[in-house]
């Protein structure tokens, strides 16, 4: 039985989605089961129908594909969120359209949309293409709307796509990325992936050829990237302690001051976003049970986030018994691996078995940003929880939901928008970042009814939980872990000052 791959509809740099769709179009007499059957009988059936089709399709003129450096199609079952309607009419889809920072079609300059303009349905899932009778997104194709073969096969038409792939692939091999834990990795945690909206902004910063104007023409929006340079020093002793062992040593006595600075900054920003009558206070949310939440909801997201941040940064992780009913307990408690999920100073890194120390200026600057970034993420998380309560009017958070949503937070308690790379020859760290300040007066949203909610909550709780950890001896004080008495007092003093 003959199986066509729709080679007439073949385009350069097309995705697996595109190959699959043209195979469906080119075999109108076959359904998916029959195609699977043919592939099976030819002993070329792999783990998926899509994969087999792509493999077979590429095997026809693999050499040609290789010579053009065609990227391997992304074999994925994920639905497509955005697509160019004109490309869809041509039975073309590129994996580039899946990237969040590409908002318009590089070929046709039309906005990428989430639904088919012909049938007004969302773009079909790869397995639903065969079920849809639409010439734009389904198993049909309008041949009269196809661009003439002579032109649509020209590589020049697809040059923007090719150029974008070149742009993405560009990598300066000389640079060394600074990882979170100090070692050198090829892909630093902080380095945004292609899926990150900031990716083109960083990439254009280091790319020698591509200009911002050119990317704008292709429908890619970029933000300005700032750059700071810090010195690094070689460490003579290679038998040093690990970062964690020496983390709270005396040489880190500056972190309390940085925490106070961050705390003051956050308090100022909250003040700017809330009415004057709003009183920012710290609660011990660890002691709150589900009943408290039901009685006194809605909460004030500013106070909640501020309190959680405070405990997160200063306190020792608690061990709670009623955590299943408390949506915030996972933010305060340490996890099963007993890791401290909070920003930590980064003072050194290892490269070719040599240790380098970063300058104190760099450590302070980066730590300050990480603290602020940590607050923004906690605030966004709390805000979403409180909003979801307000919508449902019923507090029914399941343990698994909370756990899954907080997992991502644990890994990102640092400023992930900073991209640092090391140049050992110049003994420098280059830090690139898109925002001069990540937390300013306009960062936090102004939420209606904050004061009323906040006062109601305090009234219902009767102030039992306000700074509860500092009042009761039976609970570990939040500030003693990692701080000596002087630092603890300073932080407490600084905190009180900041609220006055």
């Amino acid at each position, binding site marked *: 039985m003959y199986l*066509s791959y729709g080679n007439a509809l073949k385009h350069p740099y097309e995705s697996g989605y595109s190959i699959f769709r043209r195979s469906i*179009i080119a*075999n109108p*007499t076959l359904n998916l089961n029959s195609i699977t059957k043919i592939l099976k009988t030819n002993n070329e059936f792999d783990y998926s129908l899509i994969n087999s089709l792509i493999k077979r399709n590429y095997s026809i003129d693999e050499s040609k594909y290789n010579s053009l450096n065609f990227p391997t199609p992304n074999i994925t079952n994920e639905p497509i969120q955005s697509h160019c309607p004109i490309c869809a009419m041509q039975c073309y889809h590129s994996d580039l359209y899946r990237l969040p920072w590409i908002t318009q079609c590089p070929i046709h300059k039309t906005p990428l949309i989430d639904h088919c303009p012909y049938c007004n349905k969302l773009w079909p899932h790869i397995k639903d293409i065969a079920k849809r009778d639409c010439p734009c997104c389904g198993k049909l194709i309008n*041949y009269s709307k196809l661009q*003439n073969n002579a032109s649509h096969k020209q590589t020049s038409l697809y040059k923007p796509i090719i150029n974008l792939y070149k742009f993405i692939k560009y990598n300066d091999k000389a640079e060394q990325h600074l990882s979170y834990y100090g070692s050198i990795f090829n892909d630093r945690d902080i380095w945004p992936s292609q899926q990150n909206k900031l990716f083109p902004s960083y990439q254009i910063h280091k790319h020698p050829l591509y200009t911002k104007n050119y990317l704008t023409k292709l429908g890619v929006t970029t933000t300005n990237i700032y750059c700071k340079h810090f010195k690094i020093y070689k460490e003579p002793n290679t038998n040093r302690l690990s970062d964690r062992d020496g983390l709270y040593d005396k040489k880190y006595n500056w972190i309390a001051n940085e925490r106070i600075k961050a705390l003051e900054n956050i308090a100022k920003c909250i003040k700017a976003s809330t009415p004057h009558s709003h009183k920012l206070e710290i609660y011990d949310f660890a002691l709150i049970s589900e009943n408290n939440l039901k009685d006194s909801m809605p909460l004030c997201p500013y106070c909640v986030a501020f309190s959680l941040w405070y405990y997160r940064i200063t306190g020792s992780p608690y061990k709670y018994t009623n955590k299943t009913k408390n949506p915030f307990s996972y933010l305060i408690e340490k996890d099963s691996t007993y890791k401290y999920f909070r920003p930590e100073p980064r003072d050194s890194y290892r490269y070719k078995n040599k240790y380098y120390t970063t300058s104190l200026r760099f450590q302070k600057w980066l730590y300050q940003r990480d603290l602020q970034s940590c607050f923004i993420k906690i605030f966004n998380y709390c805000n979403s929880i409180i909003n979801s309560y307000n919508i449902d009017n019923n507090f029914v958070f399941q343990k698994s939901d909370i756990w899954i949503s907080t997992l991502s937070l644990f890994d990102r308690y640092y400023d992930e928008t900073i991209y640092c790379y090391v140049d050992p020859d110049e003994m420098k760290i280059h830090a690139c970042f898109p925002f001069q300040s990540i937390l300013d007066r306009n960062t936090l949203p102004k939420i209606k009814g904050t004061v009323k909610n906040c006062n109601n909550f305090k009234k219902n709780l009767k102030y039992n939980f306000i700074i509860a950890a500092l009042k009761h001896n039976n609970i570990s004080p939040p500030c003693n872990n990692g701080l000596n008495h002087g630092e603890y007092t300073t932080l407490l003093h600084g905190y009180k000052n900041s609220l006055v």
Partner: protein
Amino acid sequence: MKTNIVENFEHPVFNPLELLIETPAMKLLHDQIQKWLWTGATGSVVKGVSRTGKTTAMYALGNQLNSRNNTPIPVHRFSIHKRDKPTIRSVFMRMCNSADIYTTPRTVTDKLSDSFLHYLLDKTHEYKTNRIVLIVDEMQRLKSWQFDAFAELYDELRDPFNVLLMVIFIANDPECVELIEEMEDSTHAHIYGRFFTLESDFLGLTSEKSVKSCLCQYDSLRFPLNSGPTYTEYFLPKEYRNGWRLSTLSRPIWTVFREYKQNYKLKSWGMQYFITSINTLLTDLLPHYGVDAFSEEMIHESIKVSRLIPSMVKDRS
């Protein structure tokens, strides 16, 4: 020797489908089609009397057609079958079946058309060319309205795929005349202009020279291929070793056939009748009676065995 012959039925001489004797007409047809291709022709009709070897000639064309830049051009052949309901759908159905495309009795015409279109496009992609040749055998079985199927394919391939389709219709001479005349009507102008402006007559053997050319191939073709004896040597080994060749009989053979040609007003010697005659001569009469006993009587007998006379008489009447 006779026992060996009987045992070895795999010899091409005993398998008409395996035996391919190239005739000057075949070469002429190949050159003609090549010329049409190079001049951008979109279709043509090759007609000839039945049993002259038109179909064999078309199969012999194989993949020998090239574009001007020496790129091979894909060829797809199929023959038309007579159906109770001669529809456009039945033509597409026949096309799909010939290409091994999956169909069901309920498959609609659009799907059949699209499937075959993509089949042709795949072929052009495989050959990396923008030309494709479709050979349609037994054209006389088509009805005038069914030609629209080919016009549709031509149009679809032309735009947007930029592929030029050339359709060669093979037809039996007397039977197709009526159809061709019908196509000349203005209502079929779009079909006639595309496919019927070029015509070629396919003939069998027309001269002693062409007969000799065919006989020479008996003296040179070998079985098994390359390593085995020639066809003549296989059946007449002793005579072949003594320098005797079948091609030496070309003059008497043609002389005898010319009598039939004149008597029955034949245009040419159909290849099927010629091959049967020569095979009878080579495998039965000459080994049995010996080369020295060769006479015109043997040729008459061979032609009689080939059933040329009854078939031609019937045709001409």
